[in-house]
Every structure is written in structure tokens, then in C-alpha cells.
């Protein structure tokens, strides 16, 4: 009986762990994304590597598709998500703020993410990874 209980507990924990590991990145639950590379490009075509801090981008961003909101972890900075689409295992979100457009594509399996922010005289290109904590 004891062995049966232990086995059941282990199976249960295993199921929980696998569920947690396989938390969907399809927008059904909020995601946390970390930026690990930032490149800034001017209109004339020059690009240079930067950091989230220098570009004044939050290093971690929460994507809440349900609330249609992209925000810094502390919630102090936000931008609304205007458009959401899923295709071929990719989640795509887009928005606009202060004469800028932004967009992000997230691989629902790996969490790999690329994002851009465009304005009339240049752009910021970022890459990172997302999890569904």
C-alpha cells in the first residue's frame, strides 16, 4: 500500500512538473520574456549593439495576451497589444505607442523571441526568450 502511494505521488509530481515545463506559450497564460540582445539602427542604415539598459528597454517584459498588455515586470511601464495572431507554432503580437510600432514573434515550443520597435528614423531590434511562469 505504501509503495503504491509513493508511486502515485511520484507520478503526480512528474505530471505536475511536465505540465509546468510544457506551460503553453500560445498566449493563453501570461509570459515572461527576457531580452538578451539589443541592436539599434539609425535611418541611414548604421546599426550598433546596445543593451536593454542603454536603450531604456526593460530587461524583462511580461506579455499578457488575455489583458492585451505588454508591461515591465513592476508594471510601471506598459504598452497595449493591438493585434494578436497565431500561425505555425508562432505567436505574434503587435502594438503602437508614441509614434512607434512594435512587434514580436515567439516560438511557442522553444520560447525563442524576436522583436522590433520601428519609428520614422530608425529601429530597435531585440531578441530574447520567453517562459510561462
Amino acid at each position: 500500500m505504501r509503495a503504491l502511494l509513493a508511486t502515485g505521488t511520484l507520478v503526480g509530481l512528474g505530471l505536475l512538473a511536465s505540465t509546468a515545463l510544457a506551460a503553453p506559450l500560445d498566449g493563453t497564460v501570461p509570459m515572461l520574456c527576457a531580452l538578451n540582445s539589443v541592436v539599434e539602427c539609425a535611418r541611414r542604415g548604421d546599426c550598433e549593439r546596445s543593451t536593454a539598459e542603454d536603450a531604456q528597454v526593460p530587461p524583462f517584459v511580461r506579455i499578457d495576451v488575455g489583458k492585451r498588455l505588454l508591461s515591465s515586470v513592476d508594471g510601471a511601464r506598459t504598452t497595449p497589444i493591438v493585434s494578436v495572431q497565431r500561425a505555425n507554432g508562432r505567436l505574434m503580437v503587435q502594438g503602437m505607442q508614441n509614434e512607434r510600432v512594435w512587434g514580436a514573434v515567439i516560438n511557442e515550443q522553444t520560447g525563442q523571441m524576436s522583436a522590433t520597435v520601428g519609428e520614422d528614423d530608425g529601429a530597435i531590434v531585440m531578441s530574447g526568450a520567453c517562459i510561462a511562469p
Partner: protein
Amino acid sequence: MRLTIQRLVGLAMVPVVVGTLSGLALGQGYVYPAKGQSPQQQQKDQADCQGWAMQQSGVNPGAMAPPPSGPTGQVARTTARGAAVGAVGGAIGGDAGKGAAIGAATGALVGGMRRADQRRAAEQAQSQASAEYGRAYTACLEGRGYTVK
């Protein structure tokens, strides 16, 4: 008594705030009363010249944004685009040219981002504005018989 302390603190803060922004104009410069002006007269003249320099240059050093190179610095887009002295006011509130609030301080996530070229242009604009104020301040003090170095 309380009022006196407040006045003293306020008086002491003026050169600190302005000095950090205008270099020679106040904080790091030396003002010598070449015509034997009293310390009281010098204090009054310096205060007058601060006001005059603000009026002439259109720059209010006390209201200027902190240097935008740091993570908390906020700059105006118009400033970044090359409008120098006149746009410094926009550095405080955001996009002065379009009247829209912009920047991390306003809670905008994407709107608060700044590219390196924009930051450099803003720094240059702020530096020019600061120098403009400094020139006006120096001219005023020299006109009143002080040697400014």
C-alpha cells in the same frame, strides 16, 4: 526660524543645482569681485545674473533634465533631432514638438526607448544649451565688474 532655515537651504541649493549643469557658469567657475564688491552685493549680482542669463538664453538650468546617458535620463525626441537650446524644455515633459508625453517616466514602455544616436544628439543639445546659459551668465557678471574664470 523655520523660514530662515528654509531660505538658507534654498540658497545653498541654487549653485548646486545650477552648477552641475552649467560648468563654468556657476559651479565650477570662479567669480572675483574685481571692483571690490561686498559679498552681499556679489550674491545679489549673481542672483540677478542667473535670472538675466535664463531670460537671454531661454535656458532654465534648474529645470534641465539630468544627463541622459544614465539609465534614468529622459530626453525629448525633438531635442534628439537637433533642436538645441529651445527644445531643452521638452526634455522635461517629453516630446515637446508634438505635445505628447513620451518616455519611461510617463509609463510608456515602447515610447520610452532611446537609440544611441538620439541620446548623443540630446546630450549635445543639452551641452549647447548649458554653454549658452554660461556665456550669458558670464557676460552679465563681467558687465557688473566681476572677473569670471
